[in-house]
């Protein structure tokens, strides 16, 4: 009797663990199936929509030739450089403007005026200033990642709870200690969100900049493949962009979870 019961329990456990994997991949699987179906039906030309099978074959070819890895590496390095710069500037200026009102009054107007300009609109000038390859790309990425980081850091400081301000007054806490122990830790979730959004922007900016100019990087690979009508390669490039972007975000998310141990995330009702 006991054995039977246990067996049933084991089965449920097995099923639930299979389901937990499936529910994450079932939607992509259906999309791929529909995609393949459309291609097999002959409704669209293969050059306009290469089938998943073709794309997978192209992945094999491009990995073997090293083409994809070379271009991806170029783009990833550009993103890391630009993101690092944006991180330093965004956190630095965000903290500075958040903590010192005078600095805020001096700088905020200028920053808000520059913000609506899409980073890619700087490209023509950036190419003239910093050259067509690395310099201009890193500049565009830095610009693209800077604003979300900066604004989140500033917002994070702004939302410092008035209750903790009062508490610190009552306890006679010095300004420096207040900033270190209350303002910055309180703003940390915002800072990390800003970094995550910034990294996403950085990755989008590198592709946009490479699509427009230059002879290297994953964005260049896309335009190059398109001009040769190798649309399967274009798809491989797009998939690679998605995958790398997702990986970068996952790394930051994991870091966030490690840094902010005290907060339990809301995962929905």
């Amino acid at each position, binding site marked *: 009797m006991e054995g039977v019961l246990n067996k049933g329990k084991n089965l449920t456990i097995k099923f639930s663990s299979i389901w937990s994997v499936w529910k994450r991949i079932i939607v992509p699987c259906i999309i791929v199936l529909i995609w393949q179906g459309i291609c097999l039906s002959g409704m669209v030309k293969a050059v306009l929509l290469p089938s998943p099978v073709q794309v997978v074959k192209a992945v094999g070819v491009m990995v073997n030739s090293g083409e994809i890895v070379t271009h991806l590496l170029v783009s990833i390095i550009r993103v890391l450089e630009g993101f690092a710069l944006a991180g330093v500037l965004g956190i630095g200026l965000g903290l500075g403007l958040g903590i010192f009102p005078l600095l805020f009054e001096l700088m905020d107007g200028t920053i808000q005026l520059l913000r609506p300009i899409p980073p890619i609109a700087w490209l023509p000038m950036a190419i003239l200033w910093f050259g067509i390859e690395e310099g201009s790309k890193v500049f565009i990425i830095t610009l693209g990642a800077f604003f979300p980081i900066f604004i989140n850091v500033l917002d994070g400081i702004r939302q410092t709870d008035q*209750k*903790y301000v*009062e*508490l610190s*007054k*009552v*306890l*006679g*806490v010095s300004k420096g*200690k207040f900033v270190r*122990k*209350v303002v910055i*830790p*309180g703003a*940390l979730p915002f800072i990390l969100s800003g970094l995550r959004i910034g990294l996403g922007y950085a990755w989008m900016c590198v592709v946009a900049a490479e699509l427009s100019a230059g002879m290297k990087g994953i964005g260049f690979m896309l335009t190059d493949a398109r001009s040769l009508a190798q649309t399967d390669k274009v798809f491989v490039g797009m998939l690679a962009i998605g995958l790398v972007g997702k990986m970068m975000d996952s790394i930051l998310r994991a870091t966030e979870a490690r840094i*902010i*141990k*005290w*907060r*339990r995330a809301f995962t929905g009702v």
Partner: protein
Amino acid sequence: MINKELLFVSHLTKNFISQSRSTTVLEDVSMHVNQQEFVAIVGASGCGKSTLLRIIGGLDTEYQGSVTLAGKRIAGPGLERGIVFQEHRLLPWMTVQENMEFALQSGSKADNDQLIDEHLELVGLKSFRNAYPGQLSGGMAQRVAIARALINRPEILLLDEPFGALDALTRLKMQQEILAIWEKEKATMIMVTHDIEEAVFLGDRVIVMSDRPGTIKKEVVIDLPRPRNRSDVVFNKLREEIYQEFHKE
């Protein structure tokens, strides 16, 4: 030392000015608190009792009249006055230990650790020093807040409806605990509350406030031995007497 007056509030008036309107929150409030006394202030919500406590705490410095502690006019917050707020106000990113350290100005690590130990012991939470506030129950968090308010050895502890957010049973337990702390530390305490029974159970004196504007209506001396019995006849007579005050107008 006993019966020496520590805190003096005389002819205190406080107006809140918002845009064009001026509201009188406190009007001509005069009271005193003796050393080692437990004074409870009761009143309906919005009667200005919390404002009175904030003024004594130095968080609100614009008022007419005078408020003095040991002869010195109160012009801002100070470590000689500890405050426990209605919410625990523990910093969520610090452990209990770190929250206690946050309240300490300087001093060696060993001295601080000993102080923290003593005060956590006082509220019975020594084994929770490494917990984050999010892992504590409401009552436990408020006990840490009390320990934190006491760590700088204030001359007077101000409690602003400290148990208002707790469930009824936890509340009764916390009342016993604050009383035990008061007796052990020989502390001076002012507690603002809207719970008449709580006021009668804890206070040496109960100050009854009216609302809009807040004035002192009555002062009731609770001359009952502690621990007090809530079903005692005199206890209930006093409770009834204060209760009637709110139905007069």
